[in-house]
């Protein structure tokens, strides 16, 4: 017990964060990207082809299209669709998953539906959504969300089954309100499952959004890629792809990782 007290403030707490930032891992990542770019450049120089442009050409297209506002516009449209589909999938999938995880009889009844929808190909859902609901935004976003919802259900169902009932008992005895129960008891326990569902969700969803755009929308990154495919402009296809991957990486670094870091703070301090 005395070891806790050493060097602590009156609140009994010292932050364990390192004083200086460790740049080693970042340098490794940077070096890895440079090596990839050099290898790409070398390959494109050794075997020149219209189908495989060097990185500098792609960069040039990227700058040109960004300056003209094309890339930002289509990127923004696609990101909105990704965000909408993601939110829908997480909210609906979590609600169903938590319900099934805590109601075994309903789960036994609905499990075949979940398995069925898990195995319906994304393309079938998209095509059917466009046929049934028309070539519109609701059909597009709905189809993407529908593709992801079964995965979220399965993950959150597992999370709910793994809930520690002692915390629920404690919350009941101390009369936690519904909101306090959700915020302090349920969500922290489901957080790892929610994080896993979100992470796999975002990577799946943005890929499906491109297909949806390719098949039935007149804007967005998927639409542009289809356009440049018709024109056989590989540099433009790669420019759009790279721009989109960069944005998704930025979201991961600036949003997902800090959020995860904050929500698992207690885990790192516990020994």
């Amino acid at each position, binding site marked *: *017990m005395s070891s*806790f*007290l050493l060097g*602590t403030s*009156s*609140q*009994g*707490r010292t932050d364990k964060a390192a004083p200086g930032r460790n740049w080693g891992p970042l340098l490794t990542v940077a070096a890895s990207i440079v090596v990839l770019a050099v290898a790409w450049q070398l390959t494109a120089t050794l075997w020149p082809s219209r189908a495989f442009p060097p990185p500098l050409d792609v960069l040039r297209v990227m700058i040109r299209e960004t300056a003209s506002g094309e890339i930002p516009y289509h990127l923004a449209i696609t990101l909105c669709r990704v965000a909408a589909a993601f939110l829908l999938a997480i909210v609906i999938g979590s609600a169903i998953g938590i319900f099934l995880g805590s109601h075994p009889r309903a789960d036994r009844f609905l499990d075949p539906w979940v398995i069925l929808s898990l195995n319906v190909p994304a393309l079938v859902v998209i095509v059917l959504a466009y046929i049934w609901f028309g070539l519109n935004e609701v059909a597009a976003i709905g189809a993407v969300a529908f593709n992801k919802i079964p995965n979220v259900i399965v993950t959150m169902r597992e999370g709910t089954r793994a809930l520690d009932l*002692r*915390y629920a*008992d*404690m919350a*009941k*005895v*101390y*009369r*936690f309100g519904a909101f*306090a129960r959700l915020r*302090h*008891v349920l969500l*922290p326990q489901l957080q790892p499952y929610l994080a896993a569902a979100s992470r796999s969700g975002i990577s799946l969803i943005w890929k499906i959004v491109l297909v949806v755009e390719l098949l039935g929308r007149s804007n967005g990154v998927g639409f542009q890629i289809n356009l440049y495919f018709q024109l056989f402009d590989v540099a433009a296809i790669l420019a759009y792809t790279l721009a989109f991957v960069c944005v998704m990486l930025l979201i991961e670094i600036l949003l997902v990782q800090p959020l995860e870091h904050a929500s698992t703070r*207690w*885990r790192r*301090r*516990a*020994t």
Partner: protein
Amino acid sequence: MNTLQPVGADARLEIEIRRKSFEASRGGSIDVLHDLDFAVEQNEFACLIGPSGCGKTTTLRLLLGLDRDFEGRIKLPGAGEPRIGMVFQEPVLLPWRTVEENVRLALPKALHGRSLDHLFDALGLGKMRAFYPGELSLGLARRAALARALAIEPDLLVLDEPFVSLDEATAQQLRHLLLQVWSERPTTVLMVTHNLQEAIMLADRIIVLSPRPSHVVGSFLIRVPRQSRNAQVRSDILRSFHERFPTQL
């Protein structure tokens, strides 16, 4: 057909369980409690003692309202919605909230924002308020669980083997802390324990349960004031307890 009714004026805890059974996994049902009747007077410290698996924890779950599937009646002490401070066998602190947050989350609306300095200091947790439960030893986590139960100024304090699996010195220290805090603000206490020595040190009355299906075999009143219960007195009390309940440990 059960009733779980708090009644205003009377501050006694009254338990009258006609029957409580569990469904066995192979079909049929197992009676756990049968005609279990006892009461705990206002500000009395009662210990529930009985053989393993006789349904002590089940009784606590019934009176906490965690299980409502039983025949009988439970009357909780206190007016309106009685506050029950519970210390579970394990501390059951939320690992993602600090010690102070764990205690504050349990506070009823009327006590929101109250100062917890005195309680934390009395329990030796003054410097631990900002720690997460994972950073505490079991003894300290138990103290935090005790702080949470006492902070709500309970009408009834329920303790389910709160000092089990601690080394004897730590357990003894915690028993003294419990007595000290409890005597500052006495409340009705029902504590389940396997440890007869512990019961003799803490309780005003020991309620002895039979093996399953459980009922009250008898109750053993300890009239000696706590401060006079030295080692010699405790061993005398133990001897007379054994004379009355020869089959009990």
